[in-house]
Structure formats: structure tokens, C-alpha cells
């Protein structure tokens, strides 16, 4: 079959729809993942033995299993275990929340623990309770150190959504697969899909670069 790039034009609206689903899963998953990851990371860094252990077990389970297995578990096994029905889209978002959350937890823990102990001592010495030291002193400095590794995780999570093809979510990779199944234009379609991913990850990289430039890493 001869390669004909012009056929892509006709599929652009479909690919854009797939990319939209990818973006929505990634964004909502990462918002949840940031919340979960921050909580779990702080539990690891500052929690008592019980909180620390809970966070540790969560992180180890997620980091120790592939994301495809996680989403399969959520979509196929969870409804059997607990009597809940979960649609593919919700399973996909939840998988990103849980998965990104575990990695973000380790990023958060590392950033907070990397802050020189002298800073929190200086805060405590002013008569502040420990939580204020974390909120006003350690937190803002740690946040700046979070940005580079966090950006990396955002890109990984965005690309991880392509694996949700296994539960039939209509995201970008699935869309490409469906178009391909109809016309067998492998080179054109997969190139187009790859370019769409590059545009999305490129946009993320640029945004992060901008934030990094605005905020000095201290």
C-alpha cells in the first residue's frame, strides 16, 4: 500500500476527540493524584507509625504492579469483590489518581525531607506550632523543588492513559486503533497519533518550563 499522508486530514476530528478524552482523563487523574500524593507523601514524611505504614503499603502496592493490571483490577475485579459498577472512563481516571498518587507521594516526601532542618528549627524557635512551620516555611520551599520531578510524572501519566485501550476507553490510542482497523493505514495513523501525543507532552513541558522560570528553585 502506498503511503498517502493526505488521508490523515479526514481523521483529524476523530483524533481530536480521542485527544480530548486523553486530556480529560489525565487532568482529572492528576488533580486527584496530586491531592492523594500530597497527603500520602506528608504521611510518609511526618506521620506517626500507623499513618506512615498505611502510606507505605499503598505506595508499594502501586509501584510494585503494572498500571494495566491496576486498571484491569478496578474495571473487572472490583465490581466482583464489592458490588459496584464502574464505567471504563471512571476506572481510567481512578487508575491515574491511584497510580500518579503513589509516585507523587514519593516526590513530595523527597522534596519536604530535602529541606534543611535548620529552616524548620528557625521557625520552631520563633514559637510556631509545627504545622505552621510546614505550611509557611518548609512547604513553599519544598514546592519549588517539586516542580521538575512533578513535570516528569505528569508526562508519564499522560502517556499511561494510552494503556487504557485494554478497557476500551475512547482515548487517543484507542481512536487510532479503531481508525486503523478500518483502513489499515498503519504508518499514517500511528504517525498522526504520535504527533498528537508530542503536541500534548510538548505543551506540558513548555508550561512547566514557564513555571520554573517564574519561581526560583531555592
Amino acid at each position, binding site marked *: 500500500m502506498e503511503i498517502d499522508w493526505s488521508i490523515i486530514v479526514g481523521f483529524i476530528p476523530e483524533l481530536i476527540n480521542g485527544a480530548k478524552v486523553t486530556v480529560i482523563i489525565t487532568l482529572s487523574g492528576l488533580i486527584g493524584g496530586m491531592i492523594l500524593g500530597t497527603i500520602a507523601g506528608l504521611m510518609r514524611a511526618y506521620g506517626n507509625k500507623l499513618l506512615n505504614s498505611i502510606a507505605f503499603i499503598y505506595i508499594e502496592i502501586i509501584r510494585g504492579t503494572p498500571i494495566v493490571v491496576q486498571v484491569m483490577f478496578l474495571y473487572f475485579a472490583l465490581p466482583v469483590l464489592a458490588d459496584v459498577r464502574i464505567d471504563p472512563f471512571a476506572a481510567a481516571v481512578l487508575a491515574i489518581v491511584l497510580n500518579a498518587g503513589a509516585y507523587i507521594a514519593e516526590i513530595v516526601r523527597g522534596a519536604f525531607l530535602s529541606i*534543611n532542618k*535548620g*529552616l524548620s*528549627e*528557625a*521557625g*520552631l*524557635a*520563633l*514559637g*510556631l*506550632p509545627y504545622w*505552621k512551620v510546614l505550611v*509557611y*516555611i518548609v512547604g*513553599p*520551599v519544598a514546592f*519549588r523543588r517539586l516542580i521538575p520531578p512533578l513535570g516528569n510524572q505528569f508526562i508519564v501519566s499522560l502517556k499511561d492513559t494510552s494503556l487504557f485501550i485494554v478497557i476500551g476507553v475512547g482515548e487517543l490510542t484507542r481512536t487510532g486503533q479503531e481508525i486503523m482497523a478500518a483502513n489499515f493505514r498503519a504508518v499514517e495513523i500511528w504517525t498522526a497519533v504520535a504527533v498528537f501525543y508530542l503536541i500534548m507532552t510538548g505543551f506540558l513541558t513548555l508550561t512547566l518550563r514557564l513555571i520554573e522560570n517564574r519561581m526560583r528553585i*531555592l
Partner: protein
Amino acid sequence: MSIIEFHGVTKRFGSLVVLDEVDLNIEQGEVVVLIGPSGSGKSTLLRCINGLEIISGGDLMVDELSVNTGKTTLMNIRKEAGMVFQQFNLFPQMTALENVAFGPRRSRGVSKAQAQEEAMALLVKVGLGDKANHTPGELSGGQQQRVAIARALAVKPKVMLFDEPTSALDPELKQEVLSVMNQLAEEGMTMVVVTHEMTFAQQVGTRLIYMEHGRISVDGNPRDVIANPPSDRLKDFLVHVN
């Protein structure tokens, strides 16, 4: 009542005894200079006063509050005992002014406007009125340490604790910090200073304490003690620091 009272204070790190049943009273207005070889417990003694180190035994009263009576008391003690650190430990994301205004705002609940006004006055006092909007990274070590002194003073403590305040500074920058400390002493501030600056001890100190192996080995008037060291080991120590 003395402003600081150590009653048989012991501090252990694991099996290592760093402070060994220390008894010590410090009165309001005294400038106590703590010296001693490294590992003698002088920094630990200082850090026990504001509870950055938790004592293992005995009792320690600061402004009639015991460090043994829980977190809330400890926070109140810290508001009365400002600390200046060897490594300055300024908050890097804040300007000099914000560093100084931070304590009163977050710890004393002073309004932002009032905290900033008082912070500005303190920065002027330590000679850095023109650096108010600079961040710590833009200041020299001596300037950073002066901001740190202003930051501790802003909470209006009754005692100031100095933990080797000039040890991390180049010789030519030490003087600007020492002169601010000198000025504080003249104003009658109670100060406990861990330092190796024997000139400061002699000229500003009202009391010199030499520590060894977690105990107070010599306690007296700085001029007398330096002129006539009562122990051979102190004599040796003084030869080495000068």
C-alpha cells in the same frame, strides 16, 4: 526568680551523656558567654533552653515556665527566648523584611501592617534598612546574620540565645555581627552566647562559663577567668582559641 534555671539537667543522645546534671541560674540582664571544646555540650545546653533539644532528666525553667510541661508551654517559652543560628537559617523565599515580620505575624498574631512597620525599624537598627526588599540569597553572610538577629528580636523575647553566630562568617564580616550583639547587650538584653570570640567574651560578657564533658567546669567573671584561668585545661583551651 532567675530568668533561666537549670536544675540537675541531663541530656542523653542514646547512651551518650551530653549534659550531666547541670545546675545553672541566669539572671535578667546577664550576658553569659559559653565556651568549651567541641562535644562539651555548650550548643546542646543552649538548645535545651528553647526546647529544640528535649531534656532527658531534671528540670529547666525559662521565665518561670518549665520545658517539661508540654508543647504549648514550649511554644510560649520560645516566644520569650529568641535564637540566632550559626548558619543563619533565614527563610529563602522571603525578603529580609518578610523574614523579620514573619515571627510577630504567625507566632504573636500581630497585624501585617504593624509587623512590617516594626520589622522595618529592626532592620534599620541592625543597619540594613536599605536591604529590606532583598532576599537572603542577595545578602552577604554578615548581613544575613544581622537579619536573623532582627528576626529573633521581632518576637520581643526576654532572652536571646546565640549559637556560634559568627563561626560561619569570614573574619571581616564577624565584626558587623558582633557590634550588633554589643549594642543589644548595652540595651540590657539577657544573652546566652556560644562563641569562640574571646574579645567579645571579655568586652561584652558579664559571665564566662567553660564547659567540659557535659558539665560546667568554670563559671566566673570573664576578665578574671581569662586573666587567671583556674584550671590547666581552660588555660590550654584559651591558648588554642586565641
